[in-house]
């Protein structure tokens, strides 16, 4: 395991909640009412949001969401209920409501729900890898640090305004099911957003930190895992250069994409496309389906032979990293794309059981997640990551292979179609590459491609020295809508012949 140093404990105030009693009451009532399977979750999610505007505290909010949920399989049909009162009476009522929900839904359910087998884990504990619980740091200390960061940029020439926002989350969960699994799990994550704004007579623009959200504690904001001093010192110059940059000439270019941008392309065009619930149509009315359908498993040429993509819920500091998922399945790692071929999906227990013959395994890979006690567990994204070449090149070496191209850094705008074919992304910085060398920034740049064409054009991936774990706190999916946090690691990579748009021309200007 990756754990080093001091391992935090499960928060004592969460352990003080009557989690086993509530679970026992709910699960017993579900059994008494004829449920063939039932699971119970007690979740407490603390979140803090601090926003500064021009170095002045604009907003600071401390929230806690605490509640319990029961899900049952009754007469082959799901039923779910959630509430907020932490009493055994409420737990019993929720079990009854869940069974009632299953009974009401039975006439419109054409599929008998069965779950893939999973070993049981009896009263186990798991804690994510972090050093400093953000909620143990005084608010004033956090605001002072963020004010300092903001001041450094606001005082720089050319910076008209500053925005600083930091979100921190501390999630405690207790899970138990009628098969005998029970666990207590604690995860911490943090997401900073620091943006400098410039305003000129004829235009305005911005430059954001490329620091990704991470499964880390407050130590992240003070320099563990990110070099703030170095990046903050450069942002004003990057912004000034962008304001003075020439507009891009639309056309076809070779591009080297930095991990700070490529993670989002991976998220949209691989992460979501290899979710089996999408491939099976469960998200057809909302988040969309996938071109990577189940009948193409093992044959679909997703990209070039340099493409090796894994799914995992085990990466240290990964936002989707867990000990156990919301169906009691232990965290795992597996291949999604190997040598450019689709070889795997992200699944939950229901999908794993129903499709075990095609998937070639009878076990779920542990991708069930609900974003709170008030929501139903669905298949959510693992950390989906593009693997580096073991002895691969540096970013500079990749750039040196390009005669006429663009080097893309940082994420900004993103959009992809309902089957994950057609995407368009922008970024924070776009550098012109001429004869293997960077020639300064361009502006008004977007890149647009079809997923398999794009990944098929990937000539090379960088080595481990270029690998960065990016990610997002707020991936949306499902009805009712749920928000998920997920990381994507990747190296720098070189793509040939990518369509580059001029966004000003796209606007008809």
């Amino acid at each position, binding site marked *: 395991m990756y754990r080093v140093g001091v391992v935090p404990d499960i928060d004592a105030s969460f352990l003080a909640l009557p989690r086993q009693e509530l679970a026992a009451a709910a699960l017993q009532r579900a059994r008494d009412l004829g449920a063939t399977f039932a699971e119970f979750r007690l979740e407490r999610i603390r979140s803090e949001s601090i926003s500064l505007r021009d170095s*002045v505290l604009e*907003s600071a909010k401390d929230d806690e*969401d605490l509640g319990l949920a029961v899900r049952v399989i009754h007469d082959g049909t799901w039923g779910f209920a959630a509430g907020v009162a932490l009493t055994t009476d409420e737990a019993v009522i929720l079990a009854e409501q869940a069974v009632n929900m299953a009974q009401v839904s039975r006439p419109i359910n054409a599929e008998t729900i069965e779950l893939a087998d999973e070993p049981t884990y009896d009263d186990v504990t798991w804690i994510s890898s972090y050093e400093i619980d953000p909620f143990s740091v005084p608010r004033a200390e956090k605001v002072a640090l963020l004010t300092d960061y903001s001041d450094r940029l606001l005082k720089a020439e050319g910076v008209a*305004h500053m925005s600083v926002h930091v979100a921190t989350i501390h999630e405690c969960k207790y899970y138990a099911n009628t098969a005998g699994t029970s666990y207590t799990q604690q995860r911490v994550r943090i997401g900073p957003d620091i943006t400098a704004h410039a305003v000129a007579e004829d235009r*305005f623009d911005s430059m954001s930190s490329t620091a990704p959200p991470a499964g880390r504690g407050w130590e992240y904001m003070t320099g563990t895992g990110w070099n703030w001093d170095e990046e903050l010192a450069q942002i004003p110059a990057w912004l000034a250069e962008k304001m003075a940059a020439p507009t891009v000439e639309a056309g076809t270019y070779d591009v080297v994409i930095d991990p700070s941008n490529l993670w989002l392309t991976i998220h949209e065009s691989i992460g979501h496309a290899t979710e089996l619930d999408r491939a099976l149509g469960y998200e057809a009315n909302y988040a*969309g389906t996938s071109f990577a359908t189940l009948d193409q498993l093992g044959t679909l040429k997703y990209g070039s032979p340099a493409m090796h993509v894994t799914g995992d819920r085990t990466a240290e500091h990964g936002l989707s990293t867990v000990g156990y998922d919301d169906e009691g399945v232990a965290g795992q790692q597996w291949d999604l794309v190997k040598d450019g071929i689709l070889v795997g999906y992200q699944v939950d227990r229901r999908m794993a059981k129903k499709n075990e013959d095609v998937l070639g395994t009878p076990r779920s890979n542990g991708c069930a997640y609900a974003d709170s006690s008030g929501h139903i567990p669905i298949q959510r994204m693992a950390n989906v990551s593009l693997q580096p070449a073991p002895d691969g090149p540096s970013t500079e070496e990749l750039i040196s292979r390009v005669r006429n191209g663009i080097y893309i850094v940082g994420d900004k*705008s993103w959009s992809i179609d309902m*089957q994950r074919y057609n995407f368009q992304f922008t970024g924070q910085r776009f550098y012109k590459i001429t004869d293997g060398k960077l020639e300064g920034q361009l502006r008004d740049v977007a890149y647009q491609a079809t997923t398999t064409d794009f990944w098929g054009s990937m000539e090379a991936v960088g080595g481990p020295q270029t690998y960065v774990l990016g990610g997002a706190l707020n991936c949306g999916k499902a*009805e009712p809508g749920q928000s998920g946090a997920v990381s994507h690691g990747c190296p720098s990579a070189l793509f040939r012949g990518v369509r580059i748009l001029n966004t000003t021309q796209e606007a008809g200007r």
Partner: protein
Amino acid sequence: MTGIQLTPQDTIERGLALAAAEGADGCVVLVAETSSTNLRWANNTLTTNGAMRGSSVTVIATVGAGEGTAAGVIGRSSVTEDSLREIVSAAIATARAAGPAEDARPLVDGTTGADWDLEPEETTVGVFEKFAPSLGESLKRASAEARHLYGFANHEVVTLYVGSSTGLRLRQALPRGYVSSTGKNTDLSHSAWVGTATRDFTDVDPLALDAELTRRLGWANRTVSVDAGRHPTILPPAAVADLMTYLYWQLDGRDALEGRTVFSKAGGGTRLGEPLSSQPVNLHSDPALPGLEAFGFAVARSSGGSSSVFDNGLTLAATDWIRGGKLEHLMTSRYTAGLIDAPTATPDIENYVVSVDGATGSTDDLVAGLGNGLLLTCLWYIRMVDPQTLLLTGLTRDGVYLVENGEVTGAVNNFRFNESPVDLLSRFTTAGATVPSYSREWGDYFSRTATPPLLVPDFNMSSVSQAN
């Protein structure tokens, strides 16, 4: 934590009393009671369902800070009599540790509303009593006819209580529901979509929705490939809502003042008073709009460009954001209204109506008047490309149709678009009457909209999408 649950009114009264006893200069307590129920289906069978209840309490304590006032905000769910004391103490401690808030204003004065004593309203799975059997019938019919249905029906009721140390006692309960349904043909090569907002599901007929999906899937019996480019395009009310909701969310007054949005004036200031369009276009909000009722008072759990925790309970008045094509108001709190020299605060309101003076007719009428072009169903995955022009990108989804000589003659491929809704307000050539609409992209969060269909002569389809 397992102590006595309080009523919303008791939570507020005790919270305010605790805050006063602990020395807070002012306090606002918000209680939100929510209940919801939903059904979700795919591949002609139920996939998930649920009945959920939620309860949250937000305490905003204010204390003197030098020559100003500081605020502390703490939000919690599952609040009991015991934990309320901890929350109030934490809010006061947070305020005392903070500096003066730039948006500090006297808390809003008020009196006790007539419905203050009423309990929270609830919804149950019973709201689907007629809908669910009919849905089951439509799923069976679709299976028998080798079509595939996917969809979601949701109903929720939010009851808000706001109490303050300045005498405010407000309560409002709002139901909100919607259904969104996608149909696919036998080989999944074409899809269609319908969606509608509802307050109670008595006006939603799954069989009628399925019939409309079947009609639209029938249009795909003839398929035509159309290249990317600028095409005459009819945007039905749902697609207009997809774009205009994004525009609505960009009306932040402070962002405009600081040169961050399409509503910023070149060289400084805002575009208030400027014409955005030469056409008689209006964008209007009113919490009392029949059928689109929204909360009639400001609710802010955090401060921002157009909101302030000090403004909780502020009465929301009908507001013209755009009138006759001219930008009339931007969203502001009392504090940010001062920054942009607006006479009064105009916080955001959870509904809007887009209208064009004198416009009549339906989407079908626009189709009948179009010689050759495209008819959209809805737009999806809309994201900002350039805030300077409010250039948005996104995709057409679940049905793009070819119009020839005033009739729908087939289905065409999907597209990626790059367009600005602000520009579209000037470029449309024909508008229909405004009708209640349900945005495919944003309707699950923001469903109280009314919009007209629009014909845009040169809608920018940037590339073809293979999605179907």
